[in-house]
């Protein structure tokens, strides 16, 4: 593999051919503000925040769309660049609600991050925003168009990542809006509710309902279908409060479907969960202690010969659970009558 050399802010960096200036900068730890770039999506060049100066180039190109060439000299931090970035943010802020403190994305908002980075402390342009509708139809997330900055990460996700194309930009120019066929609510569209768009929205336009910030995250594997998506469960106060796709797994590369993203906490923490062993007494199941339950089971099972017992294991359980069960069936109960719903 041959490498290209380039210089970013007077630092020599080596990258693979085909790398964009933005990727090169990020890889070398140089922050370039951006709102429309996403590592999983093709470069868009819409927000114009990642403009940089490149020696020998007439205009200020966007780092996300510019491919590195040998000996490129890039400056990401000049005053001229900052001035233009600030005016872009000024324009967005003038068209965006200013209720950060009560905003669900407060502290997690990328627009906030960029504005802070550029040192913007006040609104410099007349407000252009007008009241726009809120699409509350989906049970898992809300689309509040007032916050939308039209970075198109969501529509590009719905195109490039999921291929569903339920949401697109409709109309054009200032009247552009992320919407569906016929400008109908999401629930009346072909949206599959996978939430990939929600995961990528930089602001509070697409947000999960009941969103609570977790205090810790744990990576695990989704219990639904056979794809084996890895996910990060967000935990707060001993409860699952959020689910994110985990990028580390080759099985799903960060992606999830509706069940994985929104269908975990409700069943795990469902009030009808079995919390104690039950024993049938006079034809009703009543709570009992583990001690009693285990003893009865051990005692009863011991009473049968191997060919009188059957064990049905579970495709929902872990490998370890299953290994133990089949070992139990074969070595303790003395039977090969073990099966699970492999075929269903």
């Amino acid at each position: 593999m041959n490498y290209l050399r380039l210089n970013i802010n007077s630092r020599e960096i080596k990258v693979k051919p085909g790398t964009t200036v933005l990727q090169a900068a990020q890889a070398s730890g140089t922050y370039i503000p951006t709102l429309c770039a996403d590592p999983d999506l093709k470069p868009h060049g819409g927000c114009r925040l990642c403009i940089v100066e490149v020696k020998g180039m007439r205009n200020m190109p966007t780092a996300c769309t510019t491919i590195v060439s040998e000996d490129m000299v890039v400056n990401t931090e000049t005053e001229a660049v900052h001035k233009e970035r600030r005016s872009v943010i000024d324009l967005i802020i003038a068209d965006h609600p200013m209720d950060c403190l009560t905003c669900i994305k407060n502290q997690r908002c990328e627009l906030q991050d960029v504005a802070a980075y550029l040192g913007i402390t006040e609104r410099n342009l007349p407000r252009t925003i007008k009241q726009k509708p809120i699409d509350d139809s989906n049970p898992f997330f809300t689309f509040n168009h007032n916050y939308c900055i039209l970075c198109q990460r969501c529509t590009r996700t719905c195109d490039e990542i999921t291929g569903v194309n339920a949401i697109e930009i409709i109309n054009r120019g200032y009247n552009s809006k992320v919407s569906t066929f016929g400008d109908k609510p999401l629930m009346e569209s072909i949206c599959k509710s996978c939430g990939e768009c929600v995961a990528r929205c930089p602001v509070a336009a697409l947000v999960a309902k009941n969103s609570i910030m977790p205090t810790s995250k744990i990576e695990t594997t989704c219990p639904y279908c056979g794809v084996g998506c890895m996910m990060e469960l967000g935990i707060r106060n001993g409860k699952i409060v959020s689910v994110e796709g985990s990028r580390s797994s080759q099985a799903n590369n960060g992606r999830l479907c509706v069940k994985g993203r929104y269908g975990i906490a409700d069943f795990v923490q469902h009030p009808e969960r079995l919390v104690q062993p039950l024993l049938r007494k006079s034809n009703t199941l009543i709570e009992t202690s583990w001690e009693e339950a285990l003893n009865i089971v051990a005692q009863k099972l011991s009473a049968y010969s191997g060919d009188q017992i059957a064990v049905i294991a579970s495709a929902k359980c872990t490998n370890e659970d299953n290994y133990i069960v089949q070992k139990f069936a074969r070595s303790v109960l003395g039977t090969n009558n073990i099966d699970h719903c492999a075929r269903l």
Partner: protein
Amino acid sequence: MAGLATTFGSGAMTNSNNDLLGANCIFSIGSNTTETHPVIGFNIKKATRSGAKLIIANPRHIELVRYADIWLQHTPGSDVALLMAMMKIILKEGLHDNSFIMQRCENFKPFKQSLDDFDLTTAETITGVPLGQIVEAARMYAQNGPSAILYAMGITQHSHGTDNVIAIANLAMLTGNIGKPGSGVNPLRGQNNVQGACDMGSLPNVCSGYQKISEPSIKQKFNVAWGINLPTEEGLSITEMIDSILQGRIKALYLIGENPILSDPDAGHVRKALSTIEFFVAQDIFINESVELAHVVLPGTSFAEKDGTFTNTERRVQRVRKAIDPIGYSRPDWLITCQIAQRMGAKGFDFEQPSQIMDEIAKVTPSYGGISYKRLDKGGLQWPCPDLKHPGTSILHTQQFTRGKGRFMPLRYKPPAELPDKDYPMMLTTGRNLFQFHTGTMSRKVAGLNSFKGEEEVEIHPKDAERLFLNNGDKVKVISRRGEITARIKISEASSPGVIFMTFHFAESPTNILTNPALDPISKIPELKVCSVKISKI
């Protein structure tokens, strides 16, 4: 999976989820991937975006049809005829990979003979697909290599499911689409850990890693490892267990995390068995239709409350980690089983944590030999992973097949066990919906998912609806030889006239009361995908 074991020697997905992105042609048969395996569905669409051809063979107009170059709408149960026709065309037009067949495979002649005896016009009649389309599909698959085949329960859940799988394997071998990136035969497993449960030996005929108990060396190995005398007689499959319970031969059942009343065919039969058995212990996280019949119920934990591993459809072993404490007094399943075993005086069940169990799995299971929690913490591993240095295997059969040579198997088309007749004039086929999962034990506890799909809908073609004077949303009775259920109808052109479609997610309309328990003789998989029914308006 028996079909692949016969032909390739290994019954698992030959390639990987992401490997699909490298395919030039994807042939998906009997899989509604975007509903059942959504994230793999993303990959299929992504592949078509970058130019891959897509052939869909499905009796229904599924979402992927929109992305397909060819849609073969074949009659449920006619897969073998369809695949044989494709293979006959490929051979006739010389599109087969002769050197692959010569070098990597065996038994080609009898297979070819079986194709010679097969008539293309018959194929058109059986499948209901115009021959021209079959020809086009055959060429597309054969000429755009590497071509990958995807299939799921639409292939296996037939009384001749093994034949279906063998036909697919034959097709892949015929064109050399095995053992290289972007190709392969890829069965998509339904449940999150079906692959793992099979790998671990929760099957009546094999121990972990598909080690046959009938083989003396294997028996010997486990006798030593476990310090017991392994029973040699092959066990019963679930469907056989149910029969055996009703015949009074099996008297005790230990059921873990399953709901056979909803998931198995002829549910009435299953319910009867579970209600009459002498001793029934169920271990689960919720009460369900089956669990409520148990004598003792043991509360297990969900995946979020325990450590462990799942093996996904692409043979990737990945970590499950404890995120929250067990709810109430529930306990991890492995622990409950161990505690029962210990109380029965058994040795070898004194594990303190699942990592130790994995160490034992690795010791006795060659394909898991190199897997440990330490390694898994850096990312999943795809078996075979025989030793600690082995990086895992993303593509099977690259140099040779697991069984040595790929074995072509001659085929003969057999119709489904039950076909529409005068009394039951319609064909019922079953499947899944994106917003629910399996018997709904998990997904139906999620209010939001229910708002997308909260009840069973009988999908019926407008022509049939008109004939039966039915309007959208009408409640109907669907009746088969085994029972009847009620549900609302949804008029849709997704299926052909004469074919209705239902899921099996809803206990209120338990579809599997209707389905046919006729088993595939080899895989023991019941024919859930085709049975005959009649409909009457309520």
